[in-house]
């Protein structure tokens, strides 16, 4: 079958890819090429474009895709930090349930080096790929922090002594454990979300509402509903 209701959907490569493609297949889309060709980016005949998850809000906000799937972590990271700043102008329509991860503050096992740094130096250094979420969390909990943004493996930062703690997304905690890091605080639970361009949400209202209805009717297994403690 061709594009779902004639809509263009931005699909994230990476951890959310399989869950999203399963969902599209459950809606009746022919996903064979999408699954087999991981170099192709634009699948015009099925109305799918693929990209890294953090680019999904960008394409959807600009209207290059009507709908998109991305993690709540990405949406939180790109949302307004303070009033008046203006986050991404997209609608968050549905919690898709899969891709469940927790944003955590972690530090090396043993006496918490972050507490030690706060007590003696007045500030803790925190490495993260999510500088805005990290800064917001530490500000809201009244701690002074120096945020160090890294692009690659965050776990390395505390092991080298560059920082005392990290803020990162974890699904099973395995990578943290393997690097002798333990979770000190859970910040927020994140799952995959369906987002929409605000203009498409009006001009293609019936197509989008019909898709939403079908998504809600899918068996819970296909939507992988998570526990109700997310944001």
């Amino acid at each position, binding site marked *: 079958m061709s594009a779902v209701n004639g809509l263009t959907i931005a699909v994230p490569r990476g951890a959310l890819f399989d869950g999203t493609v399963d969902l599209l297949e459950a809606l009746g889309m022919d996903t064979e090429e999408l699954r087999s060709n991981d170099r192709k980016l634009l699948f015009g005949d099925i109305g799918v474009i693929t990209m890294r998850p953090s680019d999904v809000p960008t394409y959807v906000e600009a209207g290059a895709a*009507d709908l998109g799937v991305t993690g709540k972590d990405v949406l939180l990271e790109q949302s307004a930090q303070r*009033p008046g700043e203006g986050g991404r102008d997209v609608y968050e329509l549905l919690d898709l349930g899969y891709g469940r991860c927790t944003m955590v503050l972690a530090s090396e096992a043993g006496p918490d080096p972050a507490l030690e740094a706060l007590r003696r130096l007045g500030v803790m250094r925190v490495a993260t790929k999510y500088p805005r979420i990290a800064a917001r969390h530490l500000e809201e909990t009244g701690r002074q922090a120096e945020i160090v943004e890294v692009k690659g493996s965050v776990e390395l930062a505390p092991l080298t002594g560059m920082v005392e703690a990290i803020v990162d997304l974890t699904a099973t905690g395995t990578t943290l454990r393997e690097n002798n890091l333990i979770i000190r605080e859970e910040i927020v639970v994140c799952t995959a979300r369906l987002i929409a361009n605000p203009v*498409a949400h*009006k001009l293609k*209202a019936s197509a989008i509402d019909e898709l939403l209805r079908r998504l809600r009717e899918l068996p819970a297994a296909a939507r992988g509903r998570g526990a109700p403690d997310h944001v």
Partner: protein
Amino acid sequence: MIHPIPSGTRDVLPDETREVRAITDILRGVFERHGYGEVYTPALEYESVLARADMAEAQPAYRVFDETGAVLVLRSDMTVPIARVVATRYATSEPPLRFCYFAHCYRGVRPQRGQPRELLQAGIELIGAPAPQGTAEALAVLCHALDATGLKDYRIGLGDASLFPALMASLNVPDAARPGLLESLVLRDVVGLERTLSESGLSADTAALLTELPQRRGGPEVLLDMPAQAQEAVTGLRRVHELLEPDVAERVIFDLGLVRNIGYYTGAVFDVYDPALGAPIGGGGRYDELLGRFGRRLPAVGFALGVDRLHIALAGEERGTGALLAGADAGSVS
């Protein structure tokens, strides 16, 4: 030599200026023909004066001190300066008053997002004309102006800023829960809205209504078969609809969840959409309380179009390219 200019600002060179000027000349002609006289106001105003308005998201972003130490701001829209003009210069004039403007406004930006710091707005303000007649007039002027520019596929999303608060009131939503729910709606966070409702202790029926109703959008049929508790809240939209000329009415998408992120709107609010662009071209609404804050209590309505966005949409329609051109709902006007 390359000498930089601030991000979000730009030079407009003759080819573009000619096209932009053609658009603004057309708009000016339509506005004048409907009796809207053009005004200029200073780009710099006293912060203490503009602060009388509740701007929310559209707060002035740039402040300077003058030689006496007074704080001046670069205006972030033209509605508030015109409210000042009316209270000051037209304190005793018989309403309604009609003004139009073509003016640069200044907004804060987030880095790396291509947002403009300086944007050219074209708009009207209709002061002293209450709902629903005033609203219908503003919508008619808006459609006539867009038609005159040659924009073909635009639609107008029409909502009511008082609808959701009225609905919460008629459903006896506890006062403490109301700001959070409204905030979710403003942030367009349907997931957050559903979650807050499910945790609020409200009955399932009430929660379902507060989730479902703001997601209703479409033709006038969305105003029909309204649950009893919502009848009152949609009365305003019904009355406007009754007054719309047929060619205006067919452009309108009723959107029960539409809220705008500027604080002073009190009643009808609207956005202009075109499939050639992923963001609204402009919008407006009723601001019946704003003039009172400047000392002349008059109901008012107005809209502003982003001239650059209108230009992009016109160019997109002309080329047949654009973000959302495929697959818009059937029944779109062309």
